[in-house]
C-alpha cells in the first residue's frame, strides 16, 4: 500500500513541480537572462551588463528606491493606524451602529485602486480639481488669492494618502479576529488594578495584539511596495517614480528598454523577498507564541466610550466619506457630463445618462466584462486546485523535495505583479515558448495571475490540510482507495471552507487585477480594469471611464457583500 502511495505520489509530485517550474522559475530565470541582454524581447541583442550599470549608477534609481520605501512606509502607517482604530471601535467599544459600520467597512474593497486614484485626481488636480477650486473660492472670499492648489495630488504625499486609505479594509479583516478573540482576562486584570480605558488599550490590548499587528504591518508594507495604480495615476504625472512605475515605463514608454526593466525588477524582487520572509516569520510567531484564545471565559470586555461615542461614529463617517462617498460621488458627477468640468450651475443643464447607454450597448465593454469573468473564474479555480495539490504533497506525503517545493512557493509570494508580467513577456516573446502563441490572450493573463496568487492560496490550503487528522485519509486508503481518490473524496471535502475562502480571495483580486493584464493582454483579451485605463489614459474620455467605473463599483459592491454573506453561511454549515 505504502509503495503504491509513494510511486503515485512521485508521479504526481513530478507533474506539480513541472507546472510550478513553468509558472514561476522559468519566467523568472528568463527575466534574469534577459536583464543581461540589450534590445527588445522580440529581437534580443547581444549580452551586456549595461542594464545593471545604467540602473544602479543613475541617481534617479536611488531616488526611486527612496520614493518606494517612503510610499510604502507612509501608506502602511496611515492604513494600519486607521484600521487598528476602527477595529478597536467596532470590536471592543460601544460605538453606535457598529454592525452597520462593520458592513460599510467592506465596501472600499469594491472600489478598484485605479478608480479610487482617478477619482482623487478629479477632486485634487492642482488647478481644476473640484475640491481645490472650492477651497480657492473659499479663500478668495477672505481675500486670499491662490493661483493653484492648495493641494497637489500629483505628489508623493498624494500617493501616500491614496495608498493609506485603500488598504484599511484588508488590514481590518486581517486583525479583526485577533481583536475579537483575545483573552479578556488580561484587560480585566488591568481594570482591576485601577487602569483607565486608554491606559489599558495602550499597555495591555495593543501589546497583546502586537504579533497580529506586526503581521498586518508587514503584509500592508509588502502590498504597498507592489502597488501600481496610485503610482501610475498620480505618481507619473508628478514625476514621482517608484519601482512598479519605473518598470512599467521602462517597457512601455517612449523608448522601451526591457533589459533595464528586468534589472530594476531584480532588486525589487529581492526587497519584496526580505519583506515576505519577515512576514512569514511574524505570522508563525503569532501562531506559536501568542495563544490568546484559551479554554477560559472568552468574551472580550466592551469599553464604554461615554461622551466619545458619537464623535467616534463621526470619525468613521468621515473615513467613509473619504474612502467611498467622495470618490464615488465625483465619478458619478463626471459620468453624467459630456466633458469633465467642475460642478457649477451652468453645467447642470448638460448632465445626461448618455455614457451609461454607451457602456451598456457597446460591444467592447461587454467583451471586456466577459474577459473579466473568464480570467476571474479560471484564475481562481486553477489557483486553488493547484494550491490544494501542492499542499497535499507538502503536508501529506513523504516525497523528497516537498519542502523545496514549499520554499519555491514561499519565494513566489515576493514576486510583485508587474515583475510577474515582465517575466512572462520575456518568456512568451522569445523562442521556444513564443510558438505557443499565448502572448496577448486571456490565458497568459490567467497563468500570470496563478503565478501571482498561488503562494497565498497554498498558505491557506496548507493550514487547512494540517488541521485534518490523518486517520480519516488512512481509513480511505485501508478501504482500497487510491491516494488521489483519497485526496479528492476525503481531504478535499473536509477543507472545502478553506478552499472557498482561498477561491474568493483569488477571485476578488483577479477581478480587480490591473498590472498583469495591462502588460500582457491584447485589445481582444483585456478585462474591464484595462479598458477603464484605456478610456482614461489613451482615449482621454474621462466621463466614459467614470461611467464604466460606477457600474463596476456597483457590481463589485453587490458581489463583495454577497461573498461575505455566502462565506459566513458556508462556514456556519461546515
Amino acid at each position: 500500500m505504502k509503495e503504491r502511495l509513494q510511486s503515485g505520489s512521485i508521479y504526481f509530485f513530478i507533474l506539480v513541480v513541472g507546472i510550478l517550474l513553468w509558472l514561476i522559475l522559468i519566467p523568472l530565470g528568463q527575466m534574469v537572462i534577459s536583464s543581461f541582454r540589450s534590445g527588445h524581447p522580440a529581437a534580443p541583442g547581444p549580452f551586456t551588463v549595461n542594464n545593471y550599470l545604467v540602473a544602479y549608477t543613475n541617481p534617479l534609481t536611488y531616488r526611486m528606491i527612496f520614493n518606494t520605501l517612503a510610499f510604502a512606509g507612509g501608506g502602511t502607517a496611515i492604513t494600519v493606524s486607521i484600521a487598528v482604530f476602527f477595529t478597536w471601535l467596532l470590536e471592543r467599544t460601544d460605538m453606535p451602529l457598529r454592525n452597520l459600520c462593520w458592513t460599510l467597512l467592506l465596501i472600499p474593497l469594491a472600489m478598484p485602486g485605479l478608480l479610487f486614484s482617478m477619482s482623487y485626481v478629479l477632486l485634487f488636480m492642482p488647478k481644476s480639481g473640484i475640491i481645490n477650486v472650492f477651497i480657492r473660492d473659499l479663500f478668495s472670499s477672505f481675500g486670499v488669492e491662490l493661483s493653484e492648489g492648495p493641494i497637489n495630488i500629483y505628489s508623493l504625499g498624494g500617493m501616500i494618502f491614496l495608498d493609506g486609505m485603500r488598504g484599511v479594509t484588508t488590514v481590518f479583516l486581517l486583525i479583526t479576529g485577533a481583536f475579537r478573540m483575545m483573552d479578556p482576562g488580561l484587560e480585566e486584570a488591568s481594570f482591576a488594578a485601577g487602569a483607565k480605558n486608554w491606559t489599558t488599550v495602550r499597555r495591555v490590548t495593543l501589546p497583546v495584539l502586537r504579533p497580529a499587528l506586526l503581521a498586518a504591518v508587514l503584509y500592508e508594507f509588502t502590498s504597498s511596495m507592489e502597488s501600481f495604480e496610485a503610482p501610475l495615476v498620480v505618481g507619473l504625472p508628478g514625476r514621482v517614480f517608484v519601482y512598479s512605475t519605473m518598470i512599467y515605463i521602462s517597457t512601455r514608454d517612449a523608448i522601451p528598454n526591457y533589459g533595464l526593466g528586468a534589472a530594476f525588477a531584480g532588486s525589487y524582487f529581492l526587497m519584496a523577498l526580505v519583506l515576505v520572509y519577515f512576514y512569514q516569520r511574524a505570522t508563525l510567531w503569532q501562531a506559536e507564541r501568542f495563544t490568546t484564545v484559551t479554554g477560559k471565559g472568552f468574551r472580550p470586555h466592551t469599553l464604554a466610550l461615554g461622551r466619545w461615542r458619537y464623535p467616534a461614529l463621526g470619525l468613521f463617517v468621515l473615513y467613509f466619506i473619504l474612502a467611498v462617498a467622495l470618490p464615488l460621488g465625483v465619478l458619478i458627477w463626471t459620468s453624467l457630463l459630456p466633458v469633465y468640468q467642475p460642478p457649477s450651475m451652468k453645467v447642470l443643464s448638460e448632465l445626461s445618462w448618455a455614457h451609461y447607454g454607451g457602456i451598456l450597448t457597446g460591444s467592447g465593454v461587454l467583451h471586456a466584462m466577459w474577459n473579466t469573468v473568464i480570467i476571474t473564474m479560471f484564475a481562481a479555480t486553477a489557483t486553488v486546485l493547484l494550491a490544494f495539490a501542492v499542499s497535499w504533497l507538502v503536508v501529506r506525503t513523504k516525497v523528497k523535495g516537498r519542502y523545496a517545493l514549499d520554499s519555491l512557493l514561499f519565494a513566489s509570494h515576493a514576486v510583485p505583479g508587474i515583475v510577474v508580467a515582465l517575466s512572462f513577456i520575456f518568456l512568451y516573446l522569445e523562442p521556444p515558448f513564443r510558438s505557443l502563441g499565448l502572448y496577448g490572450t486571456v490565458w497568459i493573463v490567467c497563468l500570470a495571475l496563478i503565478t501571482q496568487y498561488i503562494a497565498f492560496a497554498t498558505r491557506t490550503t496548507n493550514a487547512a490540510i494540517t488541521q485534518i487528522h490523518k486517520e480519516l485519509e488512512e481509513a480511505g486508503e485501508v478501504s482500497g482507495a487510491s491516494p488521489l481518490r483519497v485526496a479528492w473524496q476525503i481531504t478535499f471535502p473536509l477543507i472545502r471552507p478553506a478552499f472557498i475562502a482561498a477561491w474568493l480571495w483569488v477571485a476578488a483580486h483577479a477581478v480587480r487585477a490591473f498590472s498583469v493584464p495591462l502588460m500582457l493582454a491584447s485589445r481582444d483579451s483585456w478585462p474591464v480594469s484595462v479598458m477603464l485605463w484605456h478610456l482614461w489614459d489613451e482615449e482621454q474620455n474621462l466621463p466614459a471611464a467614470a461611467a464604466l467605473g460606477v457600474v463596476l463599483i456597483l457590481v463589485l459592491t453587490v458581489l463583495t457583500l454577497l461573498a461575505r454573506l455566502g462565506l459566513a453561511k458556508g462556514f456556519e454549515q461546515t
Partner: protein
Amino acid sequence: MKTKIFIGVLVGVSLLFLTLLWAQSLEKIAEGAKKEGRVKVALTVRWEEGGKPGAKKFVEVFQTRYPFLKVEYERVGGSRERERVLSELAAGKVSYDVTVLSETQVPTALRANVVEKVDWKSLGVNPQHVHPDGFGVNYRSQLYGIAYNRKLVSDDVGKKLRWEDCAAPKWKKKVAMDSRPRHLEILWQPNVWGRDKTLAHARQLAANETIFERDRTGAMTKLALGEYAIDCGSFYSTYYEQTRSGKAEHIGFTLAEPIPVNLGDVVFIPRGAAHLNSAKLWIVWSLSEEGQRLLDEVEGNGSPLIPGTQSANLIKGKKAAWYEPQYRAKAEEILKEILEAVGLPIVR
C-alpha cells in the same frame, strides 16, 4: 532643340509606361482584394471625436471606392498601444492587416522581422511618403506648435510665443510638453538648431520644472482646464480636433518658426496579414490625394506635399524645418539624448 524634344518625349513615355504599370498592378491588387473581401485596419485616427466622424468618414469613403471590401477599424493610440502591437506581432499574433508604429520602433520591427516588404514606390506612393527603410509609409503628417490657455495667456502674448519661450524662467512650472518631444528631435538637426542648442534647451526645460505628459490629447484637455498655461510641441492636428469638436474655446495655438514638420506615423502591413491585397489597397488609397485630403478634413494632418491641405497652407511662406530621412532613421538615438537632457527616466 531636337534633343530637348527627344528627352521630353522619353520622359513622357516613361511616365506613361510607369503609370500604366502602376495602374496594372493596382488593378491586380484590386482583383486580389475582391477575393479577400475584407481588411482589418488599426490606426491612430479616432473613430469619432466630439460627435464628428474621424476614421468613420475615412472608412465610408474608402468603401464607396471599393464596395467589395468590408473594413473593420480599431484605434491604436500612443506609444504604449503601439508597443503592445509590436509585441503581439513578435509573438506571432497578427490581429490587423494594416497597422501603425512610431518612427522609434521601426528598427525593432525590422529586426523582429514582423513587416511585409512591399515596394510602395512601384504602387504609385509619393516617394517622400515612403519610409527611409522602405518598410512602410508615413501617412499622417504633423506640424508642431505651441498651444496656450487663453484665460492664462493673452492672445497678444500667445501668438508671439517662440520655441525659446518654452524654457524661459518666466513660464517656470507653467509649461507642459509631451514625454516624446518629437519637435525637439526636428530642432536637433544640424540644419535647424543643432545638437548643442537643442540639448541646452532641453536642460533648461528640466530646470524650469516642465510638466511632461504622456498623451497629447490629454495635455490639451488639461491645458483647457487651466492645469498649465502653455503646451509646447503640441500637434496642430490635436488643436484642430479640439476646435472641430467645440472643446477649444479657451485654447490658442501658434506655429512658432521654424515650424517642425514631420511626415509622421509609419503605416505598414504585418508579416502574415490575412488580407494582403486589401491592405495594400487601403494604404495606397490613404496616401492618394483623395485619402490625404480626407485626412486633412477629419484630423487636419493631410500631407503638406499636396497643395491646399491645411499643413501646406500653414507652412506656406514660413520657415519650416522638415524631419529629414537620414535623421528620422536615427530617431531613437536622438530622442534618447533629448530625454536624458530633460531628465526623464529613460536612459541609455
